[in-house]
């Protein structure tokens, strides 16, 4: 080396002597290039932040309205002549009165309310005014009567949901101009709502039903909630966790610590990386063919969704687990082996505990990814009018038809009534809160247990 450098200077042109304090043209150019690069970086980050801000603002401004709902408070007389003709309070008889039988009671209650408050309206009777109320009112009334048959004959105060058009009017989504050709509601209804608002009968308040409720049909978006599909997502995540964590960890420990390095294990390794890049819809088709058509598992059941998402999450977990096993310094293994531990003892007593934070972080990120996945669920029958009932117990949670949060959002976004569009945005907020919580847990775990060597 010294010979080579000794011969060089003669060949090179002599450099001028310069002060470190004055910059020559070359240094200036280099510094300028660095400054430019920093500016590019800042621009890139600002654009990213701008998109994020735009997204969050859109989501929150569109979705926050789903968390409030318009309610109408009124007293309903539970007429014995309608609800229990025989007067014997026999549940079987009371059950025979369908929700259609309850409608006249609500119409009468609405008409009374308007008359009591002394409101003038162009609508001639309760049936005509009914458009301001949700179709769910009759079902709510019937459920109350079936669980409290002793209240028949009494007058009870209820808080009913207002119809989606009325709700939209209070939220500014529906205006007098926009309903000009609407068959479901007229400006007379909106006038009536204005008057009822003044009297305090109609009010907009927090809507717990959106977070805890079940899906509703197209005719009553005001009643729909994301609760049932949240349970569906929960059971799916249970399946994913129970399967992919042990399988993924066992597979990566074997591959990383025990397996011989040969062509076969290389082949497996390449395939795991490939699987991680397979589009999720492929797993959906696979799930449909294997779990439903071949293994005859029930359609639309969270267990099938969980199995499909397990397939999708496994490669992610294996890759992150192997990375965190690799990050444990070989000196730890050597030390354990040196004091006489078996290979297995060194892995389970020393390497695995040190790799745990990384494994858990990878698992949580994998779960969060699975939680937000929609595409494979489309193929196993989780989109439609599915999450209409809460599952029946723990086993039912796995087997009863249910939807998942992202699939429910997708379904709402498709529906005709614009009120459902608002709910889709609201659902996105709920989903984002879950994802952020999971990521936060992952960060906290990493911070608390991370070791540096």
């Amino acid at each position, binding site marked *: 080396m010294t010979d080579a450098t000794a011969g060089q200077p003669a060949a090179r042109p002599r450099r001028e002597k310069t002060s470190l304090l004055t910059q020559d043209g070359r240094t200036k150019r280099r510094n300028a290039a660095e400054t430019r690069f920093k500016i590019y970086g800042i621009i890139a980050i600002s654009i990213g932040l701008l998109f994020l801000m735009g997204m969050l603002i859109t989501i929150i401004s569109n979705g926050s309205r789903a968390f409030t709902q318009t309610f109408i408070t009124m007293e309903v007389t539970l007429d014995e002549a309608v609800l229990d003709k025989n007067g014997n309070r026999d549940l079987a008889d009371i059950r025979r009165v369908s929700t259609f039988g309850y409608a006249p009671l609500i119409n009468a209650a609405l008409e009374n309310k308007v008359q009591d408050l002394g409101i003038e309206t162009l609508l001639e009777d309760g049936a005509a005014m009914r458009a301001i109320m949700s179709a769910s009112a009759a079902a709510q009334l019937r459920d109350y009567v079936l669980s409290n048959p002793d209240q028949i004959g009494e007058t009870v105060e209820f808080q009913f949901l207002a119809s989606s058009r009325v709700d939209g009017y209070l939220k500014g989504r529906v205006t007098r101009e926009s309903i000009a050709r609407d068959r479901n509601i007229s400006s007379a209804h909106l006038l009536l709502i204005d008057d009822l608002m003044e009297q305090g009968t109609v009010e907009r308040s927090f809507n717990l039903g959106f977070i805890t409720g079940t899906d509703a049909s197209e005719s009553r978006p005001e009643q729909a909630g994301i609760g049932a599909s949240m349970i569906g997502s929960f059971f799916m995540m249970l399946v994913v966790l129970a399967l992919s964590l042990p399988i993924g960890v066992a597979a990566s420990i074997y591959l990383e610590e025990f397996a011989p390095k040969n062509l076969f294990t290389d082949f497996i390794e390449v395939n795991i990386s490939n699987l991680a890049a397979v589009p999720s819809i492929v797993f959906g088709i696979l799930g449909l063919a294997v779990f439903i058509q071949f293994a005859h598992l029930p359609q639309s059941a969270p267990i099938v969704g969980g199995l499909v998402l397990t397939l999708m999450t496994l490669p992610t977990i294996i890759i992150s687990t192997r990375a965190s096993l690799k990050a444990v310094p070989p000196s730890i293994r050597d030390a354990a082996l040196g004091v006489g531990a078996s290979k297995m003892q060194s892995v389970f007593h020393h390497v695995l505990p040190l790799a745990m934070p990384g494994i858990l972080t990878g698992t949580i990120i994998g779960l969060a990814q699975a939680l937000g996945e929609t595409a494979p669920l489309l193929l196993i029958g989780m989109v439609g009018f599915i999450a209409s009932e809460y599952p029946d117990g723990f086993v039912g949670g796995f087997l*009863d038809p249910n939807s998942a949060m992202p699939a429910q959002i997708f379904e709402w976004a498709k529906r005709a009534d614009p009120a459902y569009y608002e709910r889709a945005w609201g659902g996105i907020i709920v989903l984002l809160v879950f994802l952020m919580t999971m990521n936060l847990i992952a960060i906290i775990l990493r911070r608390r247990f991370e070791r540096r060597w």
Partner: protein
Amino acid sequence: MSFVKLTASAVAIAAVSATAASARDQVQVAGSSTVLPYASIVAEAFGENFEFPTPVVESGGSSAGLKRFCEGVGANTIDIANASRAIREREVQACAENGVTDIIEVRIGYDGIVFASDVNGNSFEFTPEDWYKALAAEHFIDGQLVANEFTTWNQVRADLPNQEIQAYVPGTKHGTREVFEEKVILQGCEDGGFLQAMLDSGVDEDTAESNCMSLRTDGRSVDIDGDYTETLARIDANKDGIGVFGLAFYENNTDTLQVATMSGVEPTVATISSGEYPVSRPLYFYIKKAHIGVIPGLKEFAEFFVSDEIAGPSGPLAQYGLVSDPELASTQQLVADENTMGSSM
């Protein structure tokens, strides 16, 4: 090792669930996304009023629904397929090959197909002939097929507005497409005398009809494979667009859409049920007879679906936009008697 136990128990759970899968206590429905809103309304009311669990209604399109319906008999297949068109002979055969022989066909009512554009744009008064001329791939002029070169509506007919032709039509997997082709495009081809001209020139009937019904592919007619919400979004983005919608969808979105008349008739529930508005189609659902008595609540659900309270002119389905069937009573009888397709024909 604790994770070995965990894996073992997870496998056990999967095994138990696989055996439990044979029992099913709720009705499963799949099929047309046009029928989905109606079926979901009925399913919800059924769940409220009966002791049975709320039926599950999946969407996916008429053809996909019927395909799953025909996969076979048993608790892991669906009980009811919704369709926005009648079942095809081919599908009946496919069903029979898989052992699905007794099918009950139930017509629930009629659905209007409307043409709507942006609420602030031009108003349109269409005839089927306009649509044929605007969207056909090739026109038959002087004995030969010439590529369609119309770019604005007023070239099609002088009294239509001067607006770019941009149509969003349902994709081929939708039952709506078939109705659109037959009742609008083919009808327009016939009304304008183009079909007759082709036949006179010695073209056989099938070729002539398919010439009539092939739509242009230069981007002026766009197939929408998604739902009506996608069509709505396209019109929102391109104000010149005219979309094909179901009447119920239009009625829920009158604030953003205006409807065009067809042959001078405005589509409403009244004009469709009287037959004045020409573009409508019946909606059906198909029941697997072998499942009646096996799946609890199946027959009750079917009967509830076509009951006067639900499907009648003042029921919730009509409220939502279904044109109720004037022959509902005979449909109710058909469901009560469990008349299958073969026996009623």
